[in-house]
């Protein structure tokens, strides 16, 4: 054989990564002179896990800041207490029993139907409820936001090239100086991370906007990192499970491959080929 099979496998793998590389080209080409900060997230890498304390603070930022416009429509409150989630507590394997989760749910008001009368009423949320919609419909959302539609945030980190780095930088890039020849439309802010440089969201974070219970200083960078950590979890909630299963699977397959290699050598021992 001219080429080693393993080399070909690796080449092929590189080939598909290269052609799918567009999905990995962080930030896109419209960032101009703005330098994206590549943060060392704790969830990066084969053994990375979510920074639970950061993600918990991130939920607070979401609740107190982002949730005035952005929904988390694919999440239920109970997800917050799942294994691998920010508020997981091993004393409550069923997240519906987790008192923190119950409190978070009760903090939201959920539109519901009275079973007796059929009237529409508001009741406090329970862990099984989904995160409610912020606006009654898209038109209402646009009307409240100068024509811009605040995107759902449940899969936002997966839905942007650059992933967590994109979201983190987007939240920080408001401080960048606008090029002199650029004209900003009404209701738009300059943000070099956004495609085209204009964003309908006004700078959402400012120093000490929230008060963290754990005493962490609420700088803009801190809040941006925390909410990104939370949203990264929300986009890929089973990541920790996937990586730990992956490790065992890879180990198992490696051992199996070695055993099969020796079996193969043994079966073919006396055979010229």
């Amino acid at each position: 054989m001219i080429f080693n099979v393993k080399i070909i496998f690796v080449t092929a793998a590189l080939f598909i990564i290269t052609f799918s590389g567009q999905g990995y080209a962080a930030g896109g080409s419209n960032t101009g002179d703005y330098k994206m900060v590549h943060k060392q997230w704790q969830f990066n890498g084969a053994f990375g896990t979510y920074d639970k304390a950061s993600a918990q603070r991130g939920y607070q930022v979401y609740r107190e800041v982002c949730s005035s416009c952005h929904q988390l429509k694919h999440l239920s409150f109970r997800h917050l207490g799942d294994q691998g989630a920010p508020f997981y507590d091993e004393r409550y394997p069923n997240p519906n029993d987790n008192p923190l989760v119950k409190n978070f749910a009760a903090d939201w008001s959920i539109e519901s139907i009275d079973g007796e009368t059929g009237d529409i009423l508001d009741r406090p949320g329970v862990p099984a409820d989904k995160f409610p919609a912020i606006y009654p419909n898209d038109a209402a959302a646009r009307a409240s936001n100068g024509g811009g539609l605040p995107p759902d945030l449940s899969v936002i980190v997966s839905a942007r090239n650059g992933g967590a780095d994109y979201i983190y930088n987007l939240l920080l890039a408001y401080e960048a100086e606008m090029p002199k020849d650029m004209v900003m439309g009404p209701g738009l802010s300059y943000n070099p991370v956004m495609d085209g440089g204009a964003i309908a969201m006004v700078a959402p974070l400012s120093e000490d906007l929230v008060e963290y219970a754990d005493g962490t200083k609420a700088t803009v960078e801190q809040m941006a990192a925390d909410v990104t950590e939370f949203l990264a979890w929300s986009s890929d909630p089973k990541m920790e499970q996937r990586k730990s299963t992956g490790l065992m699977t890879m180990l198992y397959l490696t051992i199996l491959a070695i055993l099969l290699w020796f079996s193969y050598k043994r079966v073919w021992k006396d055979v010229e080929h």
Partner: protein
Amino acid sequence: MSGHPSTYEPKYAATKWLDTRLPIVRMGADFMTFPSPRNLNYWYTFGGILTLCLASQIITGIILAMHYVPHVDLAFDSVQRIRRDVPFGWLLQPMHAVGASMFFLAVYVHMFRGLYYGSYKAPREVLWIIGCLIYLIMMATGFLGYTLPWGQMSFWGATVITGFFGAVPVVGESLQQWLLGGYAVDNATLNRFFALHYLLPFVIAGLVGLHVWALHHVGQNNPIGITTKTKQDTLSFHPYYTIKDGFAVVVFLLIFAFFIFYQPDALGHADNYIEADALKTPPHIVPEWYFLPFYAILRAVPDKLLGIVLMLGAIVVLFVLPWLDTSKVRSMRFRPVAKWFFWIFLFFCFILGWCGAETPDNIAIPFGVDAAGQVRGLNFTWLSRIATIYYFAYFVLILPILGLVETPKDRPDSITKAVLGDTKHTAILPAE
């Protein structure tokens, strides 16, 4: 399966009874003892790998179909629900999505192996054509399946691909509407795409049956392309190739598992995590990586219809390849000139893939900077034109002409001689 005399002897009364009525155990036994050339290398393990890919896609696909909802308002949410709430959905969904890529990776290796060793030549033309059919239906299935998650790339990919049919003269528009079930990609389209995506894998499975039948009728080709002549040229499929295939399958699974567990999104597009929106076109509509070379051929010409003709032609030409290649020598090992043209062909297939992923007007190979400070050079449109020309020239010019003018190297008389040299003919059979 035919091709070699059956050595199966039913041992029990029940198997004897069954054997005279439906010799299904005999078929399995003959399959396992099928005499395979003794010199098959690892490139020949991809048939087994592909069988595994098909089985994996069908099993994960059926389970996903139990949880997926083919409705424009619910499809995207149901995929999220599978990943978040369905037991092991977080594993099954990436297995199916990554599995499609791995399936295509394996089929491309399998096809290039066939091209290199001349596995399409007599008497294997029908075997090759069935393979081409399988590949064609795989492409259809892959495209239909990519529509189902109903993300932005699903929707706009489906819009672009079905738009091709609109370019057909006279009947194009009605054909497109018939396919879509309306004037645009919508719920009717999603429903029929789901139905067909569920159907086609079983068509593939049927064709795989025919493919294996044809293979066992004519016998496997091998790296030197010399037909097996004696018993010494062959080994029983089991245990020799079951163990070799088994090892290769596990190595393949390691790569598969790496993507599932550590890079589940590397082969997809971020845009497909945004729910389909008919009013918002993504800035770059790019197909999945396994369609990129054909996408580059499509965009290589300015005329839409001609582009489609070329793209389809790039696949159709594979069907007639057995009659285009005039050389009687199967393996490129004995074709010193053709071998080089083959590697250049492979190179240009990669180039086409690269072109398909890039914006056509961008510069692929910069030559320098002009007076205005703009980078000059070969853009992707022209690079894909060069590669497209070579792609077709390889099949319709190079292979037909080379077969007539090339002097092949001396070939061994038999596989046995190739393996052992001319001297020792003893001790080639394994000790029983």
